[in-house]
């Protein structure tokens, strides 16, 4: 959009990845004179806002300077040798697939830092909180920006320790068990993934993703590809999460602090699906084709399973927890993403990438709202909230209620909002899957997936009815309505949800050429 010097772009991308890391180190040091603020706590929280803000600005400038006419080309690339012995290079670059995710990550982390500045989660010192948040941001941004398999693995692992501590230290009930579950599941998946990555690197002779994608699996035999896809796929599927490897997610979400849930759902889950698109599809297409029907089958099971679990939780008397419900709805939404990827068609993969972003925005917003509800009422238990008739949020705090209804409606995929396009395109892709995939099977998956959207609509509407509506007793205490900092943190998400829904081309125009190129093997 605007012309920015290539070396400035390179610097910006390197800053986006390394900046939070430096900021994390700085957060641990005592504040320099002049920046001490009112108290050390306030100073360090402000430091978090400053750093994430700077990173967000850098990411936005990157997006502006990105050459939108050639989204399939790797831009702002840096390629320097780091460990020659392992042939590991610090290879950074962004294209139309990674750019939206990069901006989404920077945005959500900034909003989280802003939110925590005003509403620090209960727990130990904010110093460690800010440092961990920044390390987490660096790890996620690096995952989307690196173009080397080993570096990808490093970035993938980097988020584990900070997320573990965020859940285990600042979380709610049952946090330590949930944190253990999260880290052990993900680590078991990722060591298996490492074996697959090494297998690819050793057999193909390079770890460079661009070179491997251009090669399009030609230097890998089918059996190598099958083993590699299986092992890498397991690692990514745990992270995504795919049914039946999802069982760490509801616990982690329920126990995590608001900010942790937002980042976990908004950004961390995307690392898994991004890996599917960036690594498996182009680098081992034959292997992926073998597993695509199974992946799609598990994906639709996830859609149905997630929706049914949510329906069960939303029922009266089920003692359903709202956070857990949204976590299960994530399993369903990620099922659509996986279904889109499994079709191996440009339509499906584009839909998957769109659904990724939409889910990040909407679920991030939902977790923020539920967190705010918990602050006000002290519970996320649906039955306690709704009692007999409903929580009557419309009456007690009309703006909060309105936002919650908006987010729920966006999440169920109302046309005109962000949630619609991704799921529709994913289903559309399944209607006509890539050559070599069984069309009847995918048609069945499509039908089941479409049924899933109905179930999704059902449970979300039930939630809206039970939380937002209801009779308002005369003497009921008013709840505090949306505060100004909450407005500041949520408005960007609401606005982007509407923009993405009304103008999908902004995103699809970026991802489509890049996806076409990836599926065609680097050349078109």
């Amino acid at each position, binding site marked *: 959009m605007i012309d920015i010097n290539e070396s400035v772009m390179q610097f910006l991308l390197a800053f986006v990845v390394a900046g939070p890391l430096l900021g994390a180190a700085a957060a641990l040091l005592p504040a320099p004179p002049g920046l001490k603020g009112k108290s050390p706590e306030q100073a360090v929280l402000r430091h978090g806002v400053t750093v994430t803000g700077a990173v967000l600005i850098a990411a936005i400038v990157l997006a502006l300077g990105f050459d939108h006419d050639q989204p399939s080309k790797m831009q702002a690339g840096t390629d320097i040798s780091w*460990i020659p012995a*392992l042939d590991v290079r610090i290879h950074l670059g962004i294209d139309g697939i990674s750019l939206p995710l990069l901006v989404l990550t920077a945005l959500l982390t900034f909003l989280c830092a802003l939110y925590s500045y005003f509403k620090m989660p209960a727990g130990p010192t904010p110093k460690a909180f800010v440092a961990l948040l920044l*390390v987490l941001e660096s790890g996620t941004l690096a995952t989307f920006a690196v173009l080397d398999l080993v570096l990808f693995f490093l970035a993938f692992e*980097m988020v584990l320790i900070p997320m573990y501590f965020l859940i285990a230290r600042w979380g709610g009930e049952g946090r330590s068990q949930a944190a253990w579950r999260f880290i052990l599941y993900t*680590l*078991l998946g990722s060591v298996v993934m*490492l074996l697959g990555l*090494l297998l690819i690197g050793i057999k193909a002779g390079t770890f460079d993703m661009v070179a491997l994608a251009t090669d399009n699996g030609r230097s890998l035999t089918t059996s190598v590809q099958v083993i590699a896809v299986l092992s890498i796929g397991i690692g990514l599927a745990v992270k995504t999460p795919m049914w039946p490897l999802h069982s760490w997610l509801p616990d982690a979400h329920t126990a995590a602090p608001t900010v942790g849930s937002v980042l976990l759902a908004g950004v961390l889950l995307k690392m898994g699906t991004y890996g599917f698109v960036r690594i498996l599809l182009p680098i081992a297409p034959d292997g992926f084709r073998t597993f695509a029907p199974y992946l799609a089958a598990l994906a639709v099971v996830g859609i149905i399973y997630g929706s049914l679990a949510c329906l069960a939780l939303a029922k009266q008397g089920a003692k359903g927890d709202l956070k857990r419900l949204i976590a299960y709805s994530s399993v369903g939404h990620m099922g659509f993403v996986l279904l889109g990827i499994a079709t191996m068609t440009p339509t499906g993969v584009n839909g998957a990438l769109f659904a990724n972003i939409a889910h990040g925005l909407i679920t991030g917003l939902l977790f923020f709202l539920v967190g705010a509800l918990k602050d006000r009422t002290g519970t996320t238990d649906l039955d306690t909230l709704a009692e007999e008739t409903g929580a009557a949020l419309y009456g007690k705090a009309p703006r909060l209620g309105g936002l919650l209804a908006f987010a729920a409606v966006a999440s169920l995929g109302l046309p005109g909002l962000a949630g619609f396009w991704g799921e529709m395109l994913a289903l559309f892709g399944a209607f006509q899957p890539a050559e070599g995939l069984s069309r009847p099977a995918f048609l069945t998956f499509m039908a089941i997936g479409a049924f899933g959207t109905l179930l999704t609509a059902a449970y979300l509407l039930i939630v809206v009815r039970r939380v937002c509506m209801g009779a308002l007793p005369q003497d009921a205490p008013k709840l505090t309505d949306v505060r100004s900092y909450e407005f500041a943190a949520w408005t960007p998400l609401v606005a982007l949800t509407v923009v993405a829904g009304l103008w999908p081309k902004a995103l699809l125009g970026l991802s489509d050429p890049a996806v076409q190129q990836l599926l065609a093997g680097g050349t078109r």
Partner: protein
Amino acid sequence: MSSPAQPLAASLVQSVDWLAIAPPTIVAVVGLAVLVADLFVAEHRKALLGWTSVAGLAAATAMLLPLLDGDRSTFCLTGDAAACSYTADRFTLVIQFLVLGGALLAALLSVTALKDARRELPEGEYWFLLLSSAAGAALLPASRDLATLIVALEVASLPAFALVGLKYGDRKSSEAALKFFLSSVTATAVSLMGISFVYATTGTLYLTQVADRIQDVDGQFHTLAQTGVVLTLVGFAFKTAAVPFHFWVPDTYVGAPLPIAAYLSVIGKAVGFSGLILVTVVALPSYADVWGPALAVLAALTMTVGNAGALRQQATRAYSAVRLLAWSSVGQAGYLLVPIAAAAYSGDAEKSIGSTVAYALMYGAVNLGAFAVAALVGRTKVLNRVADYRGLYASSPLSALLLAFFLLCLAGLPPGIIGLFAKVTVFSAAVDAGLGWLAVVMAVNVVIALFYYLQWTALLFRAPEGEPEKHRVPGPVTAAIALTGVLGIALSGAPQLVLRFTDTGLF
């Protein structure tokens, strides 16, 4: 006039390359000097002995520098210049650096430990034994004949038995020493028998000549040669504390003075695996089909048993921190064995060996670092339970952060980047050699190990029970922690420093 005695004299008198043998020699000489000086130094000046030993080890480490320019050999056969008893090639230098540097760090910890013990440990003997053992360990990677190898192995381990049992009147200590001694001597005896079998079938002790001649052993001696190979390996497997020769480790580490446990965990392992590498890769490459599968199974068992043992440790039991480190060192020994096993299958054995060497360097730095912090905590909390580390961050933030870093390096998780990449090289050696099952076993073990490392790490940052007590940190321990910390962090930034050994020829 030419005398007939002259060629005879020339064949008996060798010129010795003193520079090449300087590192182990300096250590040995300083050790003797300290023992003698102990008789003449006044009681209140005994600390001098410690600092002399530290200086000696530092000097020996520095003497590795002039050797970097190329391979040197000495004590060669006059008839055959290729057959030498002592070679200072790249492999030797790296392992000597690991051994001498490790001994230096252990010595730094010992300075404080001896001061704290207030005459309960005999200083002169302590330093003499430590230095002798280090001299033997430094000699071992350089030896290129089976006799020197065994002598070096014994010089390295015999003083270690005494060191373990050195605590006056400590029953646990003497029991540990006896356990260690008996099992080790049995292993050495078995290994000597194996070497005699190999000698019987090949007629030589030089490793390179063994490698040549064992290929065309007379058919009827075939079984004898094979038995010899297996028996020889047993002795070295013991030193690396490979399963089933691991049971002495936990009790020995707990019974020994803490710096000695640290010393054994790194130098003891280095001795074992460098001996294994010399015997397998240099002397017996043609028997790869015998030792390859054996080592692979050994590696899988060792890491599984070690990690399972570490997992079972209860945080509130006495000495559980040292016990945990002991079991984890058994698990880590398993990872060290993986590339040696892979060397049997891959086309490029030196590359695989390089993975072991790189891993060992990483392990040496971070494990000694963890022990150094344990030594620091052990000064105030005598029982050294894992539970005693709760809230360490509140009382001494820097050492808590460093211990967390060391533990995460051992676990192989960022921010312990060097630990991660060291594991990556080991994995890639296994995958490269087609040992997929071993790689999977190792992957499962990495996850198991994460559980106890992370549990300990998490404990460091919990709110402390009661008021955090500030205590003065003694200089030598600070130096050891700082040194290992700087090494670990530098390596995390530039892993190439150690990983390059996976890329270049070592022999």
